[in-house]
């Protein structure tokens, strides 16, 4: 089992360009960036985008996540009518408004989150999934508002709440307003907590910055997918601060579990089962 953390910040499945004389149609075979083996695309998808060879958990979009979690056809999207404004008229090398448009065209999504009700093994729940494919899953006003509405809806209806996080953190282009989403979502969770709600937070690769430092670490139960990068500061920032090599596996799920920060490290194939189990124990 040649399993190792990838050195590159983003891990993707490279499509292997077929040789001119190859009989294999384009895109059918992929190379796993973790183990380097060739994987048949349909095998990979059937395996929830976990490499059948090395068990590496590949990053997936919010839509794929929902497809994997929800009982067939049970997902009903909510709050999908929110999209980002550009309140600060933010401009770096590129204007935020242009960036947003490009991301919306690229992904077909309005922002970096999908939310709604679904059934998970027959148990109804409010579910939010962050989406890495849209501006690294960063939290601006739309993500913060969607999550807050989902929490409030769960508080109102008494449904369990599941948030699957993957994010680079707060969205810089909305500056202070992004920062305030951390307080907003945390305050909403305080009320949900007071109402006796069950919040299962699922941390996936990567979950960092302002998302970790708000709702993601506030789960009543916290799950993490294997080998996911989870932290407050990014590894590079820490390395620059302390000026020494980071230990092997630092800020990975298993490290967090040993440090007492997450309850369970869960293989993707078991996520539905485990969520259902906790819901049953909570009596929700």
């Amino acid at each position, binding site marked *: 089992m040649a399993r190792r953390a990838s050195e590159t910040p983003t891990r993707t499945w490279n499509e292997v360009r077929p040789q001119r004389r190859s009989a294999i149609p384009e895109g059918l075979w992929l190379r796993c960036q973790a183990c380097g083996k060739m994987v048949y695309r349909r095998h990979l998808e059937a395996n929830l985008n976990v490499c059948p060879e090395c068990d590496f958990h590949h990053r997936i979009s919010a839509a794929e996540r929902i497809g994997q979690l929800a009982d067939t056809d049970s997902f009903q999207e909510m709050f999908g*009518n*929110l*999209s*980002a*404004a550009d*309140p*600060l008229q*933010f*401009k*770096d*090398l590129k204007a935020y408004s242009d960036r947003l448009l490009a991301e919306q065209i690229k992904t077909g999504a309005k922002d970096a989150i999908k939310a709604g009700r679904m059934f998970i093994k027959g148990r109804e729940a409010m579910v939010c999934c962050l989406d890495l494919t849209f501006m690294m899953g960063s939290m*601006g*006003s*739309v993500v*913060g*508002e969607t999550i*807050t509405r989902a929490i409030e809806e769960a508080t109102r209806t008494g449904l369990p709440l599941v948030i699957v996080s993957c994010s680079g953190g*707060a*969205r*810089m282009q*909305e*500056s*202070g*307003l992004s*920062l*305030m*989403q*951390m*307080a*907003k979502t*945390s*305050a*909403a*969770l*305080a*009320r949900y*907590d*007071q109402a006796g709600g069950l919040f299962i937070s699922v941390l996936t690769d990567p979950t960092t*910055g*302002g998302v*970790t*430092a*708000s*709702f*993601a*670490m*506030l789960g009543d139960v916290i799950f993490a997918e294997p080998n996911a990068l989870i*932290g*407050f*500061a990014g590894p590079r920032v*820490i390395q620059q*601060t*302390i000026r020494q090599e*980071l*230990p092997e596996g630092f*800020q990975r799920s298993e*490290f967090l579990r040993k*440090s*007492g*920060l997450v309850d369970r490290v869960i293989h993707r194939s078991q996520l539905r089962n485990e969520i259902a189990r906790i819901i049953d124990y909570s009596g929700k």
Partner: protein
Amino acid sequence: MSAYYQLDFEKPLVELDRQIEALETQLKNEQPAAAGDPGSHVAKLTADIASLRARHASELKAIYAKLTPWQTVRVARHPQRPQTRDYVAMICRDFTELHGDRRFGDDPAMVTGFARIGPLKVMVVGHQKGKETSEKIACHFGCAHPEGYRKALAKMKLAAKYGVPIVTLVDTPGAYPGLGAEQRGQAEAIAVNMLEMSRLAVPIVSIVIGEGGSGGALGIAVADRVAMLSNSWYSVISPEGCAAILWKEANEQTNSAAAKSLKLTASDNLALGIVDDVIPEPPGGAHRDARSTAMNLQAWIVQQIQRLRTVPANDLLERRYERFRKMGVYIEQAEPAASA
């Protein structure tokens, strides 16, 4: 005046400082000889000094009236800028410091304790950056560890138990990014603070007195009323951090551009509704006149808490929730025709 650490944009003042100082030395030497003679050299010297001082004052005012956001950040980081312990010394009586988080340790980057401010008993919680080198190192330059945030929460809960209002002073470049901090749950500590502060049933007021760096700042700033000193900054990331990511490199020029884009000044944050008030600093920044800054700070704290104390606890919490609930700007399209 010339003892101050000089910021580059204050250069025009340095020459004036030098001239004033020279004349003052002259004056000191001559005074015994010809005191009381109106037409004397002394009277002329005195007049010259006065006019130079006036020029200095107007120059200072002019420079600080048009600080760029990046220059404001530099003022907020001025080494002589008053810190939490300075304000505690200036506005608090009977400060009773309380230490430790009861779990891991006592973080010197977070100062907590009971105190009296004017007519009020309060719990003071604030970041401390440190003044002397050894204190700076112990405080990690104002970057608190998880134990600092947990200490803050423990003391705030203590205050809430006895109905004592809470005053937090924010002054941090950000929460500490390090091995131990991560291992002990920096993110969790900040998140729990925000959650718990949203439901502490006593008035909470927060003031950004210098740097309001991201989650590390917000971790003690979920309050009923939030203010900024006029030369402080408050944002989701430091200009350098932002420049390094979005401009691919942090240098004087990109830092300046990032500071501008981030809308991090007190007036920007006021316009965005992120803070409720801006507390004025004297011309030339808090470090030039710490005492008058402290008086402004005290007046604001006392006024706000006295107002908040008249609000019933339930309403207080409801309003605090709403204060943060309404934050965020987005476009909401009409819901499409209801799907079953």
